[in-house]
């Protein structure tokens, strides 16, 4: 019962861990290098979703303050009315990093394919041990 409640109230954390493990599984168990790279991408995306979810608040809106510019005083702003933008901003950077990593990994796959004409890890291992 306790566990169910935990899952029901903290489902975002459970989801990101499930996603992360899917990614990790693909990185460890898949034989094809492209599948591994995709697994890596899922792994990183899980963390991005985790960050995005921690900025959320119930009954809150996007953090843009409505008001007439330059016309005297603003009404007092309640932080609880706005979702926290900082984790989202951080994730913009993290998305850039993960795209860059994905690109580099793909480029390496291309390089490996040009050299060995295969992307299957067991075949690569065989070719390497022949030398």
């Amino acid at each position, binding site marked *: 019962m306790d566990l169910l409640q935990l899952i029901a109230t903290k489902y975002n954390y459970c989801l990101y861990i499930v996603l992360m493990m899917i990614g*990790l599984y693909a*990185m460890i168990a898949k034989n094809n*290098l492209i599948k*591994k790279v995709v697994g*890596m991408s899922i*792994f*990183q995306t899980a*963390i991005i979703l*985790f*960050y995005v979810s*921690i900025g959320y608040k119930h009954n809150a809106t996007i953090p843009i303050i409505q008001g007439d510019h330059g016309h005297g005083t603003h009404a007092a702003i309640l932080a609880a009315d706005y979702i926290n933008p*900082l*984790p989202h901003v*951080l994730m913009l*950077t*993290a998305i850039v*990093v993960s795209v*860059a*990593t994905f690109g*580099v*990994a793909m*480029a*390496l*796959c291309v*390089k*490996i394919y040009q*050299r060995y004409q295969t992307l299957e890890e067991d075949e*690569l291992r065989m070719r*390497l041990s022949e*030398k």
Partner: protein
Amino acid sequence: MTTYPELIVLAPLLGAFFAGIAAWVESRISYAITLIAMGIATACAASVFTQVLASGTIQYRMAGWAPPMGIELRIDALNAMVLLLISVIALLNLVASYRNVEKETPDRASSFYVMYLLFVVGLLGVTATGDLFNLYVLIEITSLSSYTLIALGDRDKSAIASLNYVFIGVIGASFYLLGVGYIYIKTGTLNMVDAAAIMKTMTDSSAILVAFVLCILGIWIKMALFPLHVWLPNAYSSAPVGFARVVAPLMTKVMVYVMVRLMLTVFGLDYIFDTLNLSQAVVWLGTIAILAGGAMALYQKNLKKMLTYIIVCEIGYMVGGAWLGNQMGMTGAILHIINDAIMTFALFLAVGNMVYRLDRVDYTDLQGLFAKMPWTMAGFVLAAFSIVGVPPTCGFFSKWYLVLGAFEAGAYHFAAALIISSLLCAILFFKVFEICFFEPMSEGHGHDSHGPAAVMEEAPVSSLVVLGLVSVCLIVAGLYSGTIVDTLITPILN
């Protein structure tokens, strides 16, 4: 005196940009720009270092935003020291490796310099920053540039080694990022000092524990602590020499610095050693890393490969020392960051010279090398002595502090591992010396074994001069290690 801490990071970054543009014209211009950028960074690092020594911690606010909102560069004696180390080694390597780069990547020389600068930007940024998320981004900049640079190396193996490094590196960095997320949930800040102050009030929180475990685990993967080391030997031994010379001494050592920084500034030693009481387990991990690294090095038949396993072994020293839980151990670990960087740099400089002449450095290729490259071998012998821990060289002193710390903490297994690893390293290096000194040149090199002595075929002069300089540093750092400890390390720890 005004200092420009931001220029330490910005000069190489702008340099990378201009070197990339200059690549359209001529790769030699890229080289010149790289050299100038590194020169500026080194000069700034030196001036910041003297400034920190004279008047304490420097805080620089990026774009004028005050912390905890803005990102700050926070430079105390510990990172001033590491900054100077990184910039000097990167600059010297640039001078030493010019011919190696031309020989190994003739058509990609300018891309090499651009990525090299970005790599150094990452390392310097990681060291200078006072912001947890910034640290993650800069670690990734370092890693991304090192993936590409490693892939420029050996035609058959480098791309595969690099891809494996990508997979494991991403897991490491992501764990760290996740840990930072938990810190942010609990404290609402990303500034190291600010987060540390808030976390002091919630030491029994399980979220902080998770954050701690994730951050440290992520950094351990990046620094290749023993069971997590598998990416390192292949990646470093197939990298082009010009890059291996700088990544081997710096990358892992900077990650050790990050670990020490997390321990000292962010989580606090009280939390780690009193609340969590993790010291014992991690010192055992360090012990196992030392023994396993040394044992695996014994099985190698290639000099570069063997040295990469010695790096794994040295990581065990620093992790074990930092987690002994007393001042002596931490002093030894921090001193070993500096000393190990210098020693590994000297070793890889020498190996780079050998590769320049021999192309391959399997043990069988090294026969008669003392006659062929006497100066390179002299530097190699000195660096090897330092790794083994022969007294006037710097390797002895940090090991001495580590052993004293181990006895103080009652971790006799760690002290035993340190001494056994010295013996292992002695065996490893004397095996190499024996091949280089006593075994005659192989027939394949076109020399008759009864014939006249081998012709001297030394590496480029610039490389030799740098090797000589670094070898002198090995002794000087050893002789002045007392001063380094008293003026730099002890004040940080008190």
